[in-house]
């Protein structure tokens, strides 16, 4: 029973990780229809940022790296958007393949720059230990996820740029004719979406390996969260991440890790039978 109860916070903390890795995608995918397979490598970039900052800041690297990684990954995203993706709007499946190519190059680049073996990022000492079954570093990630969601919410609802972003997401043409510079909004969205990947990467150094393959471990899960949550939907992403986290944690608790993954996949297929567009849908009259 105790173990069973313990799974609840564990499930939520898994959900927090899923949310962090998927949040950026929700917006780049939701607003621009870009399926960014290089998102995983932006996460990796965030993790390596923390690794590099260690030389300067020691064990505080994880904290200092949060804003820095946001900028680094965000800039990488911006460059990608400017250099390639903007030519691809309206061809989302092509962006998938394009960004996959980018992700291969970035992986190899990381291997050349940092070496193939994993590197270590030391966690701050005050993150050692925990309450009951929940380590402090999990709580930290949980808090970070909550803070990020609040930040995004505030950005989208309390700033002009955020409102423009929502407008473009809901109706690109209408937004464009209302005088919104959609290209600029796209850039900004891509910057933020990629930056969030960087933040997630920093958080992941606390619990997982930091190496060139880092991104590949998370990308499929991230997309599943987006699919289940609905495009561009903050609340959808939050609920989907929490739901999948809990499902994952209990499925693994009762069976094993392999089966849990299969169960989660089956659940998503079943779920899409009821809600083919994910939890929350932006209503639109668009038709193919």
């Amino acid at each position: 029973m105790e173990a069973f109860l313990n799974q609840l916070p564990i499930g939520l903390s898994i959900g927090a990780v899923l949310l962090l890795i998927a949040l950026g995608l929700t917006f780049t995918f939701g607003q621009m229809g870009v399926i960014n397979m290089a998102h995983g490598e932006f996460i990796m970039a965030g993790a390596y940022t923390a690794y590099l900052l260690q030389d300067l800041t020691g064990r505080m690297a994880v904290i200092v790296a949060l804003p820095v990684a946001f900028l680094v990954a965000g800039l990488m995203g911006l460059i990608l958007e400017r250099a390639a993706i903007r030519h691809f709007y309206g061809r989302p499946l092509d962006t998938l393949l394009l960004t996959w190519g980018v992700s291969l190059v970035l992986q190899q680049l990381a291997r050349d720059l940092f070496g193939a073996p994993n590197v270590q990022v030391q966690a701050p000492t005050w993150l050692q230990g925990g309450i009951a079954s929940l380590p402090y570093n999990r709580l930290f990630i949980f808090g970070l996820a909550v803070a990020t969601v609040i930040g995004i919410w505030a950005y989208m609802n309390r700033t002009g740029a955020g409102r423009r972003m929502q407008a473009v997401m809901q109706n690109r043409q209408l937004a464009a004719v209302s005088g919104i510079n959609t290209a600029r909004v796209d850039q900004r969205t891509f910057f933020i979406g990629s930056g969030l990947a960087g933040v997630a990467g920093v958080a992941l150094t606390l619990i997982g390996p930091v190496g060139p393959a880092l991104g590949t471990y998370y990308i499929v899960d991230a997309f599943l969260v987006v699919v289940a949550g609905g495009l561009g939907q903050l609340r959808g992403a939050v609920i989907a991440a929490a739901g999948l986290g809990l499902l994952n944690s209990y499925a693994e608790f009762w069976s094993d890790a392999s089966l849990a993954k299969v169960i989660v996949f089956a659940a998503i297929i079943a779920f899409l039978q009821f809600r083919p567009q994910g939890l929350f849908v932006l209503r639109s009259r668009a038709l193919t």
Partner: protein
Amino acid sequence: MNLTRLKGPGLFAAVAVLALVVAPLVLEPFRLGLLAKYLCFAIVALGIGLAWGQGGMLVLGQGVFFGLGGYAMGMHLKLVDAQGDLPDFMIWSGVEQLPALWKPFANPVFALAMVVLGPMLIAAVLGLLVFRQRVRGAYFAILTQALAAAFVILLVGRQGLTGGTNGLTNFFDLFGQDLAADSTQRGLYFVVAIVTGLLYLGARQLVGSRFGRLLVAIRDGEDRVRFLGYDPARVKTVVFAISAGMAGLAGALFVPVVGIISPALLGVVPSLELVVAVAVGGRFALAGAILGAVVMGYAKTSFSEQFADGWLYLQGELFILVMTLAPKGILGLAASARDALARRPRRPTAPKPPPTDDASGRRVMEEVG
């Protein structure tokens, strides 16, 4: 996209001669075996070309169907080799009795039927489920990708049943022929080449028919097709199942050619690589899919023989370049080059790449009324 049709049967005959006469004479057995392997991938690519290039369904999980076909074949070969005993890997996995799932595969007819029907059935069920709910475009692509990931985990986790990560390997006998013999391998090459050719002709017949037109129409305007009284879900399911069947057949041919089937061949990355190959060859023409698979297969072999580390760079870069500069792939480039050489206004043989999925919805109807 009519590039091949323009050149017509002549080109096809030339390629056939090259594949069936020249290649076996010129290539040493090892290289011929590699070519057979590329052609197995080409069959999968053909299915991808049909589903993606013609039908707009980006299938990122063809490895699953390749695997289903491959394992069906592998299970049969293992049972034949075991001669009534348990297959070797079951012994070291601690399985004491042949699992019920394996028993029917001792029958060659059943095994061969399952090679094609198994993948088609699974694709049909999955297709009906998702297409009826109008899951498409990126959603569909991601789901197929997740399917590949889940399938690999399932295969690996059921070691006693599937051989786990090792997969099935160490086959000796193919319908009474010694698999290690060069003559068997040569015969297999001919089988693979002929099957590839036949499937290509079949696929072309399909694409040229009304059904093919309907498929293109669904790719470019699925909802519009609905208002013509067709159910796109059915059409897409049929095509998805056909492409799955092709992948299954390719998997079954791959097993005796290469001598192994394992989860490493079926996951997210190998499935994506095949899509890449189709894009490189030219996704809007079936010939492009085959060409792409052979070219990329060859490139992978020769470049990784030369410089292993660079292969990822090259593959990634190649892909970025193809997507940004030559979305119609090698065939598209060939067509442009031919037109440029001919110095005449381009004929509308290769129209601009159509929107491949629901993005095209954006340009359509907004309510004004």
